[in-house]
């Protein structure tokens, strides 16, 4: 008996981002509200981070709630019926319940049940990683329409006395719908990791150590200067590779949407890339704070609200963070 030849799935040649959705924590937390335990000042925080306020959610709002709101807006704006979404990827490091996944709950809540759904942990590069996956899975025929949502409630993992990262962090979610495209609209992803620098940024203890009374509630920490050097000079190389891989020149970009880690990183990064003045640079961090996997789609959503003329233009997005991990691609803005 001969073995029959299996059919394999095939998909469209190209994909694109159809729409964005955004949700931020309800409260705008000022620097003055945070400076007491770190013996600091509004000016000190502004000078080092560019942050004036960061959005933080109330206790009853979860990262999954923020993800749901952002995903719902993205689906509504896409014009694609929710029941045609057959893939939901959530990029997050702060889902307080490790399982079940955030993505399965979000898929059900937005009317996309029984979409394939899984969470992905690539920290602040999580959104770029998830866009790469959705693009590849659709082109491979494994899905038709995908929701990618970056969602974080980082205020659950901050230490008010920490001077390294806690005061930067905010809560929010940003989502996109990705679907087939007649023309190329998501460029090749340049991504990678460097686990030799795993201690540079991340949680300062495990849940096991917390359970056993050997550590306080785990919170985020970073070696700021080391992260800064890597995020600017190493990531500038990655950004140039993503531009080159897309077959374009920096002057072809309409927007630069880096992970909103710190305004000083964004400013020095843009300087190193020597972007033309015509390129609009996302600076959502000033009033949202650093929201890890959510920051790129949140910043893109805001850019399109404030600069509707960017629609149809090319944007370079690059995420980088704990791992260390990084991911970048050029996309066409919807």
């Amino acid at each position, binding site marked *: 008996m001969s073995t029959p030849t299996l059919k394999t799935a095939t998909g469209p040649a190209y994909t694109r981002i159809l729409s964005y959705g955004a949700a931020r924590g309800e409260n705008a937390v000022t620097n003055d509200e945070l400076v007491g335990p770190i013996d600091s000042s509004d000016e000190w925080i502004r000078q080092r981070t560019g942050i004036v306020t960061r959005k933080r959610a109330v206790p009853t709002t979860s990262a999954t709630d923020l993800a749901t709101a952002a995903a719902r807006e993205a689906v509504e704006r896409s014009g694609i019926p929710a029941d045609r979404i057959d893939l939901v990827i959530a990029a997050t490091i702060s889902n307080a319940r490790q399982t079940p996944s955030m993505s399965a709950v979000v898929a059900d809540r937005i009317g996309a049940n029984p979409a394939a759904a899984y969470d992905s942990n690539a920290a602040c590069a999580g959104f770029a990683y998830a866009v790469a996956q959705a693009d590849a899975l659709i082109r491979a025929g494994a899905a038709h329409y995908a929701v990618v949502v970056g969602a974080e409630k980082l205020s659950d993992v901050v230490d008010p006395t920490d001077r390294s990262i806690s005061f930067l962090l905010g809560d929010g979610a940003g989502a996109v719908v990705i679907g087939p495209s007649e023309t190329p609209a998501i460029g090749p992803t340049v991504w990678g990791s460097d686990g030799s620098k795993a201690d540079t940024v991340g949680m300062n203890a495990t849940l096991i150590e917390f359970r056993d009374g050997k550590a306080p509630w785990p919170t985020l920490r970073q070696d*700021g*200067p080391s992260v800064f050097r890597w995020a600017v000079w190493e990531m500038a190389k990655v950004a140039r590779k993503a531009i080159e891989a897309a077959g374009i020149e920096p002057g072809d970009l309409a927007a630069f949407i880096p992970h909103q880690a710190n305004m000083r990183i964004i400013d020095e990064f843009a300087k190193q890339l020597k972007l033309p003045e015509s390129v609009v640079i996302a600076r959502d961090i000033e009033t949202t704070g650093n929201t890890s996997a959510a920051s790129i789609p949140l910043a893109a959503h805001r850019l399109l609200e404030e600069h509707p003329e960017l629609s149809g233009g090319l944007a370079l997005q690059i995420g980088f963070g704990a791992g260390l991990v990084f991911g970048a691609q050029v996309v066409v803005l919807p």
Partner: protein
Amino acid sequence: MALSADEVLAGLAELITDETGISADEVALEKSFTDDLDIDSISMMTIVVNAEEKFGVTIPDDEVKNLKTVGDAVTYITSNQA
């Protein structure tokens, strides 16, 4: 050819001025980067990366923490030039 300590100091002062606006006259060997010149850790790292390029040296992150004064940096650069 390796630069002298005076030449490194002058070059370093230029980098500090470019990053912070501090007058080159204020950059002296005994000055502390943080206490005297009020240079924060992010500006310090920018100066370090620019110094690596300008002087052809490698200054690892762990070493940056040991560079407390301008003199520390000049000594490190002059003794590590290729």
